[in-house]
């Protein structure tokens, strides 16, 4: 080969960065494409450059890993081995018939109006995930934000939405969010977690296999204590209250079956509710390419290959498991892609360490997944008038009516009858709720594009037929 093979890596979070550095070190020309203006993804999100943070690592731990990734990226960029396209929102990746190559279609800039196309011999999808939030009365009030969103605004923009926060829902993300908000000066009135401490201890063997993460959890617990944050395990937020914005939430204890215990509801005053019920993988680009999914995640083999030749995937797009897992998967994917782009079969022994980390982290994620669950029966308790689809303002009552009276048998028909999932977010926000209400499996998509595309950009594309 006279020219170096080109690999497009979509996503510059832990997975994409690890993959890009690994592939670049093996002689591959890497195009690293990300919507953000700086590398880092969610876990290593950096404060905007203009904010002049002098100790940007204050909200982070595991800082040394980030330093290595950052300096590695700089070195490869300077040497021309990696081109980092920041502020590029990818809306579609398409295989080229004949050549076996790929075209990456992106929109440039925060306004996302200018179309850009990039060619590559192979693609690696490291697009991460987004938060799942199950609806409850009042969840559309200003001041109610996703837990990860509050964290992202704090890490990237150094701002808080209010003074007094409740952090609620379920999942390991709630801990760093609560400590982050408290450290930044918010008064965190409570951390409301629907999982109970007993569930956690039952899973202890699997959890203990990942000692680093447990220690991290203990570190968070100590910090919560120091900030005087009240932790309420096996509790849930039943409703958010306010008119123009959030003023309070109702919190209740859950019984052992996960249902609210009568007589335990009480109000907690707050102007911020950071809420989340776990993460979901971004699979849209993979789906358009025709990659098979496994559940809600992109399906990959031991080398992190999807079932479409030339397409790899790593990180939370292939299953939610945190930054350590994303890094390991990225390393494996980068090595596999580099070898295969040079026409050789990779030697798995060369990633034995990453493989062990991956196996441990996946087992850990599976154990966490069985512990952290939204409260049982949340869908049945949802009042009819609660908005489920935030974009199209479709209520729970209308979704249930579509199934009950109108006889819709799948998520797509519910969508056509009610417009739930037809708005700007393309069902990303309401999908899990509609699935819970209707009993239909969460249908991750059939979204034509990963981003809304301006008509002018579509019209300006060359005819490829």
């Amino acid at each position, binding site marked *: 080969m006279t020219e170096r093979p080109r690999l497009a890596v979509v996503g510059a979070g832990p997975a994409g960065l690890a993959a890009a550095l690994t592939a670049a070190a093996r002689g591959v020309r890497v195009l690293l494409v990300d919507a953000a203006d700086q590398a880092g993804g969610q876990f290593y999100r950096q404060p905007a450059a203009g904010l002049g*943070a002098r100790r940007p690592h204050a909200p982070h731990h595991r800082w040394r890993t980030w330093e290595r990734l950052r300096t590695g990226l700089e070195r490869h960029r300077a040497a021309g081995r990696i081109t980092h396209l920041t502020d590029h929102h990818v809306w579609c990746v398409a295989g080229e018939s004949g050549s076996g190559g790929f075209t990456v279609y992106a929109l440039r800039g925060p306004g996302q109006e200018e179309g850009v196309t990039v060619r590559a011999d192979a693609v690696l999808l490291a697009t991460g995930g987004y938060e799942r939030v199950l609806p409850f009365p009042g969840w559309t009030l200003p001041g109610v934000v996703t837990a990860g969103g509050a964290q992202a605004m704090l890490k990237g923009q150094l701002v808080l939405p209010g003074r007094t926060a409740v952090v609620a829902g379920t999942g390991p993300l709630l801990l760093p969010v609560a400590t982050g908000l408290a450290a930044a000066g918010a008064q965190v009135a409570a951390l409301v977690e629907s999982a109970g401490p007993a569930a956690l201890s039952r899973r202890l063997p699997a959890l203990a296999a990942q000692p680093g993460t447990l220690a991290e959890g203990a570190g968070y617990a100590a910090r919560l204590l120091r900030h005087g944050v009240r932790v309420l395990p096996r509790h849930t937020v039943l409703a958010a209250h306010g008119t123009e914005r959030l003023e309070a939430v109702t919190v209740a204890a859950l019984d052992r079956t996960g249902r609210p215990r009568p007589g335990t509801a009480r109000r907690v005053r707050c102007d911020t509710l950071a809420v989340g019920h776990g993460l979901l993988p971004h699979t849209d680009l993979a789906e358009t390419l025709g990659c098979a999914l496994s559940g809600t995640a992109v399906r990959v083999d031991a080398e992190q290959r999807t079932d479409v030749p030339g397409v790899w995937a790593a990180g939370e797009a292939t299953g939610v498991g945190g930054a350590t897992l994303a890094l390991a998967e990225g390393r494996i994917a980068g090595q596999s892609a580099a070898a295969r782009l040079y026409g050789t079969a990779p030697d798995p022994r060369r990633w034995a360490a990453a493989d062990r980390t991956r196996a441990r982290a996946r087992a850990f994620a599976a154990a966490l997944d069985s512990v952290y669950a939204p409260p049982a029966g949340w869908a049945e308790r949802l009042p009819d008038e609660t908005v489920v689809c935030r974009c199209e303002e479709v209520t729970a009552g209308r979704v249930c009516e579509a199934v009950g009276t109108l006889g819709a048998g799948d998520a797509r028909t519910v969508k056509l009858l009610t417009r739930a999932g037809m708005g700007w977010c393309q069902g990303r926000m309401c999908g899990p709720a509609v699935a819970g209400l209707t009993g239909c499996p969460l249908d991750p998509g059939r979204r034509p594009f990963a981003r809304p595309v301006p008509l002018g950009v579509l019209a300006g594309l060359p005819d490829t037929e």
Partner: protein
Amino acid sequence: MNPLEPTRARPGPAHTATFDGRPLRALPGQTVAAALWAAGVTAWRGTRGTGAPRGVFCGIGVCFDCLVTVNDRPGQRACLVPVRPGDVIRTQRGTGRDDD
């Protein structure tokens, strides 16, 4: 405490835009959503259906709840778009297309 403190941030000089006709201070690099949060504003959209107030929800460009009108262009995601000096930012009502 101020959330800039833990990182010992020393931002460059703030610039000024307007929000619904009032001056809005923004630090360099701040998005519209961040500048509005820092000014104590959490809602800048009224929904198409019921006119209910909305602001940031996902914070990462996925949910489209934070849509706002910037320099007469509606439908901008406030959590992604940086404030530029002199920007005229307005609450978006509905699609923002029939604003006068």
